């Protein structure tokens, strides 16, 4: 892979979360909702999106299909895993109430946990397509705890532990489907405490330990957070790399022994980053941060908050970077 030539430090590009849907897919989705089309139309459109997303990821270390068929990052888990309440209401209302995704104009359905979270081994992997050298995006244990309604567990440490065990139960099948990496997304860290000293939540490292070293690489990404504050949370965790939001991170305060995902493509911006500006950001990071490890490059956040065409352009900008010296 082209990136590997860059002083052997850049390991390639990866995405940092789900990707948005195309206009055509949105139209198909609405048509299904309105009873004017069958679900097959939506699935066909999603598949078309997936093909474009995958083919745009040239030179990527791990490849994602975008997970754009997931109605939100929680939905397949809430649908499939025992322990979640199934409300006696129709359609998607049965998952839980529509809840704002932090400050954005997007929402997710907040599920309620009423029993022990456990897995039969295919609830998560079954919701992901086969993909060679794949990467799967899941909520990290802390954000999972914060974004569900917990009516069962006495403390978050127990909940995080069982959540991690449920993921581990899916790893074998994920491996068979071609997945090589799990990226835990921890948006709550950034959105809740962007400038304060960040403490490691009790039970968090133990929850990560449950998933690490089980055959797939494990990364933790902190979108919307100052990475200089977020990295210490997992500095002692047994994980393979930490993702930092390059837009919200003070590079000069970053000091870590971990490998990194350097989020330098702005998932909250419509403009497409040019190769020169991306290279400048990498150079700025290397000159300012106390860091001698290896790194991936990618977006600072999910590409779900930019329209599909822009998301593809941003992915291609990362791909193009692999073709030239950094």
């Amino acid at each position, binding site marked *: 892979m082209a990136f590997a030539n860059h002083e052997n430090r850049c390991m390639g590009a990866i995405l940092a979360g789900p990707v948005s849907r195309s206009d055509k897919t949105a139209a198909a989705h609405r048509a299904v909702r309105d009873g004017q089309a069958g679900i097959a139309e939506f699935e066909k459109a999603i598949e078309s999106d997936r093909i474009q997303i995958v083919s745009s990821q040239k030179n990527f270390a791990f490849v994602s299909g975008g997970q754009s068929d997931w109605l939100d990052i929680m939905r397949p888990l809430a649908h499939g895993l025992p322990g979640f309440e199934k409300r006696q209401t129709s359609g998607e209302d049965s998952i839980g*109430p529509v809840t704002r995704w*932090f400050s954005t104009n997007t929402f997710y359905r907040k599920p309620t946990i009423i029993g022990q979270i456990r897995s039969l081994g295919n609830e998560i992997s079954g919701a992901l397509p086969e993909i060679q050298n794949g990467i799967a995006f899941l909520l990290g244990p802390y954000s999972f705890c914060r974004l569900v309604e917990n009516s069962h567990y006495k403390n978050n440490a127990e909940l995080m532990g069982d959540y991690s065990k449920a993921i581990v139960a899916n790893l074998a099948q994920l491996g068979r489907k071609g997945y090589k990496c799990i990226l835990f997304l921890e948006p709550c860290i950034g959105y809740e405490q962007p*400038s304060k000293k960040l403490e490691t939540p009790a039970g968090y490292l133990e929850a990560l330990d449950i998933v690490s070293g089980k055959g797939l690489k494990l990364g933790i990404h902190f979108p919307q957070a100052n990475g200089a504050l977020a990295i210490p949370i997992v500095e002692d965790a047994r994980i393979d790399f930490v993702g930092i939001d390059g837009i919200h991170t003070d590079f000069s305060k970053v000091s870590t022994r971990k490998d990194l995902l350097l989020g330098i493509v702005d998932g909250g911006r419509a403009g497409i980053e040019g190769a020169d500006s991306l290279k400048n950001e990498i150079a700025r990071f290397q000159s300012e941060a106390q860091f001698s490890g290896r790194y991936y490059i990618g977006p600072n956040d999910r590409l779900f908050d930019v*329209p599909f065409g822009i998301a593809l352009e941003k992915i291609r900008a990362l791909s193009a970077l692999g073709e030239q010296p950094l």
Partner: protein
Amino acid sequence: MREKAFITQEIGSIQRPAWRQKLDAKPLPEWIAEAIFWGERLGVKEKSELANPKKTGLLQKSARTPAEKQRIIDIASLYVIRMFESAGLDRVFNGEQPRTEMYDFLAKNTRGISTAGVLNSFDANYFKKGVIDSAVGVLPSGVAFFEEEFSFVKKNTGKVVKPCLTGPYTMADWSYIEHYRKLREGGGAGPLDALMAGRHDAILAFSKDVLNPIVQGLGRMGASVIQIDEPAAATREGESEVFTQALNLSFEGLPGGVEKAVHLCYSNYSALFPALAECKADSYLVEFTNHASPVNFKPDQVSPETFKIIELFKEYSMDVDVGVGVVDIHSDLIETPQVIRDRLLYAAKLIGDPTRVQVNPDCGLRTRQWHIAYAKLLNMVEGAALARAVVGD
């Protein structure tokens, strides 16, 4: 002079029925049946313009002219006005029936914004997100629209009319602020500084050049209360001052006696303080009920965070009314009048004066079907009456 204790109102949006939403589609029989059902239930005399035995109704035609489509939108507004009136609300508006979506609609009436593309909101709902490519300012047609919208509702109800507008902070937060970032980058700012300073510039531009001209226009039209909606507020540290400044700029120039209302929801309200103490708003309509039980209210089981904003208003000596969100717009479960009464009395006790308590849903009810929304509003009004009886108002 307050009208009474526990005045009732909606927040803004009510779900647009399919017959209003899909003006270019051939109406399905169930859409027509729904229009007839609600027209009869709410006593909307204009329902016969939509459908009638002679099959000459607007929904019974195979195609409609632009004027006919506008009439359907007007009638949808009348349906919602009657819904609010028949539920017994003290203050009404149009459920935002003439608008598309709270962000998208104001963006369309603002120069300097173009559509970047479609993004998912939730489930199969999508919205168009805008990119700011030059300085923002409300279009003259935008000001005219909001004035005509207000005028239409005022002409068709005897109740107090409360227009609502998406606020400057939310409009900036939900847009790609490319223009303002580039200006800052051009001035030599680094990526984060350009982002944050660009956000401030965009927020203040929205308040001064988009919201304020509309607010002033509504003031001239005789609005006695104007509500600014800020669902994106309080989510980024260090922005409470610009948030407050933007609200004050938006309301600037309104004549005395016009109630300046602000709606907040699903946010970390504490992060707004102490800056919010400098805000000149008269009332804050806040979400309090999300995820609470619909069948009982136990103050000792309420998260301290839930009512903390009331304590903060008191701590900072803010002389404001508080609109207490007493029904959950995220759930089909219908709160009982008794639990609504108890929530209101608890809030009144915290505030120390029931006449400073207003009553509203947590947020716009557009997420709920009409029969759910209507049932919630009916119970809300009944709960307020029960609370009024307890305090002897």
